[in-house]
């Protein structure tokens, strides 16, 4: 018996969100007596890096190093994870919500006949049946969900559990996957990705700017503050709609939903659609010159003032402290 965790990697590193998924599985296995945690990694990545997944609580990592799996071809990944599931004899799969993770989980659910719960925010309640708490209405509510199937897939939201860091190195085992041509029916022709930046959906701190920034030429201030804080940068919908910032930085109901420990909103009024994308943040700081901005109602800390005046001062004060 084991719990299987599908882990993702980028730039030779296992993603932090995947380590959270391993930590979640580790706590779950202890609760449900499902044995050890086995992770499955697909495509080219170093064995030393995979062994380090042990720190989050995995006993073993199955590594299918077939280079065709290095790019995230959805169907091929779903087939490979289904084969790992059979091999391990698992009943439960845990993975972190992501662009690829979601797409793989949905196909996997049909392949292994598993009840699937997405946006899971805490460990399941197994006192009567199998009830999983998930975030719904874009963070405005939660639903307890009864999973009725023997096999289960849990796609977890960021910050669902604390990251475990004290586990022993995992053993890494190579794993042969048999893949059909139909698994590669689609082809990834190129990838455009911001490099050397902290990725918004995975960031612990996010600094976002809105229309109050008055123009893309003023984003240096946002970037400086983000750099000081080690944060990712985001923006409101109007800002990405008018093209001041790329779409992948749009935070909100129809953009990226973030769940950082600290969210700093600068010159954003706080429309309900924007709040829907940030309401899972642990702490929210709002800087806005309009004291009536609705965002202040959702904030923990606020400064009423002109961003052009406050942000550079805040940046200096933080630099002195950090």
């Amino acid at each position: 018996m084991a719990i299987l965790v599908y882990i993702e990697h980028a730039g030779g590193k296992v993603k932090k969100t995947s380590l959270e998924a391993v930590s979640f599985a580790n706590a779950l296995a202890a609760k449900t007596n499902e044995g050890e945690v086995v992770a499955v990694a697909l495509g080219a990545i170093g064995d030393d890096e995979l062994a380090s997944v042990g720190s989050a609580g995995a006993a073993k990592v199955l590594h299918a190093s077939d280079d065709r799996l290095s790019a995230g071809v959805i169907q091929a990944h779903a087939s490979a994870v289904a084969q790992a599931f059979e091999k391990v004899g698992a009943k439960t799969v845990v993975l972190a919500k992501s662009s690829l993770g979601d797409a793989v989980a949905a196909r996997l659910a049909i392949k292994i006949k598993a009840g699937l719960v997405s946006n899971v925010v805490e460990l399941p309640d197994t006192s009567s049946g199998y009830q999983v708490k998930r975030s719904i209405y874009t963070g405005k509510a939660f639903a307890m969900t009864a999973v009725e199937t023997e096999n289960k897939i849990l796609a977890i939201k960021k910050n669902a559990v604390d990251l475990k860091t004290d586990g022993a190195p995992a053993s890494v085992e190579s794993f042969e996957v048999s893949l059909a041509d139909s698994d590669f029916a689609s082809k990834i022709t190129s990838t455009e990705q911001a490099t050397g930046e902290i990725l918004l959906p995975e960031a612990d701190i996010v600094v976002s700017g809105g229309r109050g920034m008055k123009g893309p030429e003023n984003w240096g201030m946002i970037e400086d503050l983000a750099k000081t804080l080690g944060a990712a940068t985001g923006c409101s919908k109007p800002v990405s709609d008018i093209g001041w910032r790329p779409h992948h930085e749009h935070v909100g109901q129809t953009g990226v939903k973030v769940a950082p420990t600290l969210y700093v909103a600068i010159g954003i009024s706080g429309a309900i659609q924007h709040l829907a994308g940030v309401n899972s943040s642990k702490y929210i700081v709002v800087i806005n010159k309009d004291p009536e901005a609705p965002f202040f109602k959702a904030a923990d800390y606020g400064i009423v003032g002109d961003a052009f005046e406050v942000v550079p001062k805040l940046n200096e004060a933080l630099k002195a402290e950090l």
Partner: protein
Amino acid sequence: MKILVCITHVPDTTSKIQFTDNNTKFDTTGVQFIIGPYDDYALARAVELRDQTGGKLTVLNVGLAESDPTLRKALAIGADEAIRVNAEPKDSFFVASQIAHYAKEGGYDLILMGRESIDFNGGMVHGMVGEILGMPSFSPVMKLDVEGSTVKMAREIEGGKEMLEATLPLIAGCQEPIAEWKIPNMRGIMSARTKPLNVVEAVSEETQAEATQYQLPPAKGAVKLIDKDNVGELVKLLKNEAKVL
């Protein structure tokens, strides 16, 4: 080309979310329902593709009679016909099973829907339908062009996008900026009244993960305001009180 667009009937994005019946039911009091915003993007792109290549555009919703005005709106925006699977959309698997059945029956070349519904946010239905039908599925797709039987797409990934090529038939979960939302014009609204809206029965009752109880998040405490000339105070609070630095 035969295109199927699956739409959800969901509370408007500005709705205040509340529950009734001992927190087991969504409270629809004062709530306006709309086509899911992501589904609206899928529909807009489908109308453009149908106008380019000809063929037929069908919209489908799994829902009760309350969904009919939402389907009529989709017809006004430009769909040729509508299907409503007369059942409560109980979970992703249930909805995917219905869509897969009627999609197979209809023999569609392209199946589009939103990347996720804005009520349950699962984002799983397109992938499930794809796996049931043995078709490739892609999400979240922000660009989709059809050239003959080749489909060129851009899919959003963390911090960027990947360009993809695949062949029809396929399924895509869509998001902006795949197309601009279309607002129905008077001619569209008039013609929508006479376009077919067929109500069909659910083909399976099986569910796997149904919501049983709802909760609202705890109320947020009052904001602590810091004077703009004393930003050092904010740094202190972040460090010592919130402990996030």
